[in-house]
């Protein structure tokens, strides 16, 4: 087993051993179930029969990508970096036969897997909840769901990498988390305050998946946004890596 793989497995195991990871993954299953129950009681109570339940995967995706998943990623990034700097357990990794660049990559990879697993779990749970609550899953709905959930990966990765970049500046978890949340909240207010500047904010694309479904958006615009998000990912990764490489422990 190479040192990168070894460290990546370790980082995933460390994330998994934290209670909040288990609680979050549990929420990815429970919230769609609760959402489905709430929607069906709403439909039966108000006799609205136009199939709100068929939007459950999209409703859940909106909830998770705007609020829950970013918040969880902030905490996971802070745990992986600032938390390990503060508790000095980072030395347990760096005094093993692994280069700093690989140690950094393994932590980022673990976060990327966490995003993929979370999105996959939310999609499966909401699709299952929809089926069980009597909503019908059509073939096109299924494809739209897969496309939307898959396309949500890139903006979530960009959000995670920005958190990783910011987390490098701190040796105190509370300070790092506070700053990352503050930046996110301010960035979310940006479209209301400076709409033209919001286009350049990486946090403006958390609901980017909605552009991918329905086929109403020109492919040129999708390509531009993909490149923009990809560039943010590369810049945040390189910026984070440079700081991590130079850090003394």
């Amino acid at each position, binding site marked *: *087993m190479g*040192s990168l793989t*070894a*460290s990546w*497995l*370790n980082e995933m*195991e*460390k994330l998994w*051993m*934290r209670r909040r990871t288990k609680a979050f993954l549990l929420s990815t299953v429970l919230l769609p179930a609760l959402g489905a129950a709430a929607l069906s009681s709403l439909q039966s109570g108000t006799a609205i029969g136009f199939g709100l339940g068929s939007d459950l995967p999209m409703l859940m995706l909106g909830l998770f990508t705007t609020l829950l998943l970013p918040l969880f990623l902030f905490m996971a990034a802070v745990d992986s970096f600032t938390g390990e700097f503060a*508790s*000095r*357990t980072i*030395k*347990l990794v*760096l*005094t*093993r*036969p*692994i*280069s*700093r660049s690989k140690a950094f990559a393994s932590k980022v990879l673990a976060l990327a897997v966490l995003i993929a697993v979370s999105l996959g779990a939310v999609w499966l749970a909401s699709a299952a909840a929809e089926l069980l609550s009597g909503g019908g899953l059509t073939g096109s709905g299924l494809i739209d769901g897969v496309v939307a959930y898959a396309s949500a990966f890139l903006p979530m990765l960009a959000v995670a990498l920005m958190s990783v970049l910011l987390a490098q500046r701190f040796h105190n978890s509370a300070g790092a988390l506070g700053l990352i949340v503050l930046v996110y909240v301010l960035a979310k207010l940006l479209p209301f305050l400076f709409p033209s500047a919001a286009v350049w904010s990486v946090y403006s694309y958390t609901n980017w998946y909605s552009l991918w479904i329905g086929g109403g958006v020109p492919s040129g615009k999708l390509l531009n946004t993909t490149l923009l998000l990809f560039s943010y990912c590369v810049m945040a990764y390189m910026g984070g890596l440079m700081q991590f490489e*130079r850090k*003394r*422990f």
Partner: protein
Amino acid sequence: MEAILEAKEVSKRFRNGRGIRNVSFEIGRGEIAGLFGPNGAGKTTLLKLITGLIRPDRGTIRLFGCDIPERFEQGMSRVGAVIETADVYEYMSAYDQMKLAARFYPGLPKSRIDQVLEQVGLTPYRGEKAGHYSLGMKMRLALAGALLPEPQLVLLDEPTNGLDIEGIRDVRLTIERLAAEEGISFLISSHMIDDMGKLIDRLGIMRRGEMIRQGLRRDLVPAGVTLEAYYLSQIRQTKGAEDDGQLDGELA
């Protein structure tokens, strides 16, 4: 002598002006080397430079002939280290922590984890979360982590800090046994010369970021003189020379 660790004219200066200057030091295979000096002498800095936790401003460091940090992975593959404090993942059991560490060493037998936990006396507590351990138990766990890869060189920074008399004796006996039975080399940094002095056959004395004396114990310490007495005489001598220099400067 085949040097497994070589540090040549290594310098590192921090923003506060402290650090180490032109430090050279080496360890041969099978030796137990002691790095002594008062608090703030630069011992931990030197160990951090050797393990790549800090990058030097100048100088070269080689582990088993591999330049650090250029060939860090190869160099560190035969090294175990406990630097500055006994850091452990508080939310994990001793066994789980060893399992994580073992992934970095392909080919390590599974039984090795049980073996090192037995060596440091943590077998009865292997499933307990390290957050519940005493300071001494954390140090033993850190030591187990350093010994896990069947290293040829172990770097220990203040390994007896916070330990009670029994704990200090246990650490000393473990080091003694591993050096004798498995031929492991040790570099032990300490400001408490009594704890480790009995073991060492090579020593380096640091003061204010400089290596003021280094070499084999038998070449440096005269017969009939204890290591403690030798250490104190060297520290006083250097301090005296500095004071004289300062006085000369003031008189001039």
